């Protein structure tokens, strides 16, 4: 039981840390990514 407790505690810390880190990166870099997507869609519409 003790090993499971240690394992889940470590897993929780890694998961929570990864969740927070990826959230920050996605919010930071997602804006330019979204603008590029909309530019490409506009371009596709002009070509059609």
């Amino acid at each position, binding site marked *: *039981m003790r090993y499971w407790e240690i394992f889940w505690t470590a897993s929780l810390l890694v998961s929570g840390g990864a*969740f927070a880190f990826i959230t920050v990166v*996605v*919010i930071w870099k997602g804006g330019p990514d979204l603008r590029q*997507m909309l530019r*490409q869609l506009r371009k*596709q519409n002009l070509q059609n």
Partner: protein
Amino acid sequence: MSFTILDWVIVITYLAGSLTVGLLGKKYLGDVSHYLVAGRELGLYVGIATLAATEIGTITFMYNAELGYRFGFAAFAAAMISGVVMIFVGRTGFIISRFRQLKLMTVPEYFEVRYSRGLRLVTGILVALGGILNMGVFLKIEGEFLTIVSGIPARYLVAVMTGILLLELLYTVAGGMVSVVITDFFQYALLSIATILVTIYSVHFVGWGNIVHKVTVTMGAAGFSPIASPKFGWTFLAWQILLWLSIVTCWQTTAMRIFSTRSPEISKRVMTWTGFIFLGRGMLPMLWGIAALALFGSGVLDKGVPLPMVHGHALAPIDAMPAMLAQILGPGVRGIVVAGMLAATMSVNSSYLLGWSAVISQDVVLPLRRIMGKQQLSSRGQLVVNRVANLFVSLFLMFWGLYYTPPGAVYLYLNITGTIFLAGAFVSVVGGLYWKRAGTLGGYLAMLMGAAGAIIPFFFLHWNENVTGFAAFGLAAVGFCAGSLIGRPTSPNREGMLATGGLKELR
């Protein structure tokens, strides 16, 4: 009423902003591929945001918290499997790379490419049926969360949920996947902040030592070890691995994000990074549920776990987590958290509305028209069919979702309704992509035996979920192999379609 004016201002500002941003998507809409797969222009970061937001809703928080409350840390095994399977699929490109190369818009579309139009139709019907029934329980459970946390009287539940559904419907019908992706990005940011806030508050308020102690004294070893837990065990773990492999590859709303990425390489990276988010998507709300057990778990035993007691009233285990939030969050923070949960709700519901209505229009209505010898619809005509399907799915959800209550743990109910079509679809897709002998008869048998393997044992024989899920995948595999060996192998027209740059003749 637990909400202050500040909380209301935060929530209403969020709702107005979300609707405005969502409606902006309409001006970027050109043809049906924009409506369903955002013109296949999703980059890495927006891809991660929309995939995560699509699969993280208030319903996800509720059922994961319920699992944590009922089964303690042992429930973490389910979250671990979902994340690790996603990372595996992302790293290897198993199924998703081939899917993305084929330039599909829906999962059943693959069944016409590889097998036959008839099998696409059968798969489309089963996918739509299983998917909509699965989504059918969302509204009621999400409504329960909102009424408990915000303190809105339960008699307003139907009106509140109908209002939220209408908001989602407005921008989803107007801008399709483009609107959904734009709103998903902002909703992902908000729901993630809420997730982190609730986790910090839960651990700080209840205390890590109390959380571990409560699980130890209530459940013993079964609260930590998924092998020792009577509800889980090896069959559960094996079924979960199969189920998550099928969900991340064949679940329509997940697959639509893969179809929408700029390239197969980006689809793999999106899947890998979202896998890490999925670890937290499961474990963090499970932790909230365990914290709620430590805080309120003092009632009479129900299936070995004490019912939550709040202000002298016994609640259902699924309602313990929102009751805890109503108690521990202060003014302002509660508004941010509820706005975050609304964001989660709207991102999931809008994506699911789009996903299931896409299957109805592209894989049921359009193939039926061709089978009946009717003229192919133009891109504009397909858009209209998609929007009408959206409306019908919403109407069904309003009536079914608000009045139906699922039996037992919601997570397991959702797993079984998903298995109805996932077992057959997954086996047929794997066979179709990686086995030359695969044939249409095998595909039919896999879909039908997989569905029967989920429905009959669970709803009529009342077997437990683990054995039912395992049986469904087993029967689908047996049916697929037997049918493929007995019938004639079907030649895939995939290569020719890849050479011509996609499935142009189908659109």
